[in-house]
């Protein structure tokens, strides 16, 4: 297991730092390719959401310079970033990924969105070929773990989503949401969800503006709302009491002067901006205006901390599941570790068997096909019988920590070659390690 993970999340880094590291979906494939081109990295993939950037790799020696990759890729100088980065290896990396996929590491613990985002990131990496055998195993397992956490604990059920927190905040500002107007800027899943919550609490009408006008129309139709051309955004935005903004714009689209215009036209009635975009859409300067209440992703997190405590117990259950799953995954990987040993042991004995048959064949003279088959069956049967216990022992040992010792002993006893590969089936290129998986299947019948 040579997994390496580096990243930042909402706990380790402020929004300003995450903004700098965020990778837009359009650039993700290139980024994955760059990652696998980095020295020491065999497979790699990147998860970039508004709350986190995670780089997960399978490396040849377990110590690839991933920080170096980040510095190179984002043209960073100095070590300002380093304090915010976390780095995990092997078991810890697996645990972290499991926690992320299960939404235990999320800002709003238990929210379902992150699993979709991880799956999307994984699909991207698969498409460009940067995630193959090893990461494949890891992520398949991660998705299964996420599902298990979801079904076996209540972590996700009472999920205080960002959307419902937004509703509560809106109520703290407007009292009742009856008759309030919502403006969605940038049609996205998350803003749609937030809008749905707001409408369910009584908001009366909705406007949608999007760079792609057709998408705005599509979303507006869902809510019986009105689509607005993006150019008319500033002229019509003051009609909204609540603005949900999540564009992919690289800079703030709502600046101080816009806020002043809105307030003047609204006779200073307050406006609530739910800014779920990273980088942020509402400039901090505008958020300072009296009557503008702007909450970005981080602020919403702060607002939910109280609620998270309620689900502490469920989260503990989920953590226990994660721990046992990490153990299982590790054990499974170790089982793979013994596969080359078993294979070379079989090869070794097969070579001996063939050599012995060849040696005695001369003395026995020509054999009928039936006799030939009988000899084959006899010798093979002896070997399989003899092999049965050592192979079972190897496989059992693989699940414990003594795997390495047992493998070494077996190799020494039988004087097996390729000592180097014994514990590192992944060594070499990714393709090779990939071949190990089918091998294992071949071993299985011998075992049975």
């Amino acid at each position, binding site marked *: 297991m040579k997994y390496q993970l580096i990243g930042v999340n909402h706990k380790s880094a402020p929004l300003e730092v995450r903004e700098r590291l965020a990778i837009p979906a359009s650039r993700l494939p290139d980024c994955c390719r760059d990652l696998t081109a980095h020295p020491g990295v065999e497979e790699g993939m990147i998860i970039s959401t508004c709350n986190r950037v995670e780089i997960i790799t399978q490396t040849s020696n377990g110590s690839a310079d991933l920080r170096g990759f980040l510095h190179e890729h984002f043209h960073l100088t100095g070590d300002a970033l380093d304090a915010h980065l976390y780095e995990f290896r092997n078991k810890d990396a697996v645990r972290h990924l499991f926690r992320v996929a299960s939404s235990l590491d999320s800002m709003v613990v238990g929210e379902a969105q992150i699993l979709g985002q991880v799956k999307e990131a994984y699909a991207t990496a698969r498409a460009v070929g940067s995630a193959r055998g090893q990461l494949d195993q890891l992520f398949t397992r991660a998705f299964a773990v996420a599902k298990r956490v979801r079904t076996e604990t209540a972590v996700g059920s009472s999920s205080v989503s960002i959307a419902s927190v937004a509703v509560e905040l809106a109520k703290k500002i407007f*009292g009742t949401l009856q008759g309030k107007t919502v403006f969605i800027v940038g049609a996205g899943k998350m803003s749609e969800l937030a809008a749905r919550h707001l409408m369910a609490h009584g908001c009366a009408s909705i406007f949608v503006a999007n760079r792609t006008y057709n998408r705005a129309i599509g979303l507006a139709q869902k809510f019986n709302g009105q689509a607005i051309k993006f150019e008319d955004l500033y002229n019509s935005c003051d009609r909204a009491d609540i603005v949900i903004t999540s564009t992919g714009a690289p800079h703030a689209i709502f600046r101080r002067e816009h806020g002043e215009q809105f307030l003047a036209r609204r006779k200073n009635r307050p406006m609530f901006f739910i800014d779920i975009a990273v980088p942020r859409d509402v400039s901090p300067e505008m958020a300072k205006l009296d009557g503008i209440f702007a909450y970005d992703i981080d602020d919403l997190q702060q607002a939910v901390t109280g609620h998270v405590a309620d689900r502490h117990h469920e989260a503990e259950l989920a953590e226990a599941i994660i721990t046992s799953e990490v153990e299982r995954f590790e054990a499974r990987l170790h089982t793979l570790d013994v596969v080359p040993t078993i294979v070379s042991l079989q090869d070794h004995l097969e070579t001996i068997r063939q050599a012995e048959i060849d040696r005695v064949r001369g003395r026995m003279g020509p054999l009928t096909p039936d006799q030939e088959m009988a000899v084959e069956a006899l010798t093979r049967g002896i070997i399989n019988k003899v092999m049965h216990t050592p192979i079972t022992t190897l496989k059992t040992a693989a699940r414990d920590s003594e795997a390495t010792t047992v493998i070494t002993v077996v190799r020494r006893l039988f004087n097996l070659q390729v000592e180097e590969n014994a514990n590192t089936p992944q060594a070499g290129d990714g393709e090779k390690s990939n071949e190990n998986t089918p091998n294992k299947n071949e071993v299985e019948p011998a075992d049975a």
Partner: protein
Amino acid sequence: MALLWLRFALACYFIGLIYAFFALNRTSDLFSRIALHAASLGMVFHFVSLLELFLSGHVVWASVHNGESLLAFFSMTFFMIIYAIYKTTAPGIVVFPTVFFLTFVAAVDEQPVLLTAFVQHKGWLIAHIILIFTGYAALVLSFGASLLYLIQERRLKAKSPSSLISFLPALDVIDQIGYRSLLFGFPFMTFGLITGSIVAMSSYGKVDFADPKILLSILMWLVYMIMVFTRWNSGWRGRRAAVLATIAFIAAVVAWAANYFSAVHRFAAS
């Protein structure tokens, strides 16, 4: 006897005062219920006290202390009306201390009835007193609401998690309480000043604009009008509204204090 009832009322209001000191950082419902009941009981005592004064036959409210008592009672009435509409005790944070202070001063001792000079205009005088004090009470509420608005606005801006669980009502509700009190109080204040002028005119034959009491009253009324206008015209709220409300409040207090310097509005029989 009236004084005794007032002192009972004061004891009840004391509970409200304690509540006001702790309410901002509390989310407990129990405490606000206790304060509410205590305040209601206090109002009953207070009402009995005022009724006794009235039944004694003189225009006894026209003494400084009884005037303060009346203002305290009106403020409490407003508080209760707001509670009935909005189900919030939050304005108590400002109203309770004000009421306690006014009642405390009024309950110190009995004062002789002093504004005897206007006894021939009794009807106008009573109208003047009631109108003006209603206006003052509305101003107290409006001032309280703008302070609460500032606090709630700060909390929402600071994005502290406490803003979600705080017992303060929604920003818009606080705003409505303040604005409605303001609108409600304005005509009372205006007519109160007019009736006051009528009493003065008929007593002295003219209104002396150089008199500090009259000057300050007009100033207060102007600030009041500016508040109503800016709010109606450009929706001033939050910090700017709070500044105006504070000015109006100070002007009102100063106008009240001017009784001691005024020649025409003197309580002491000269």
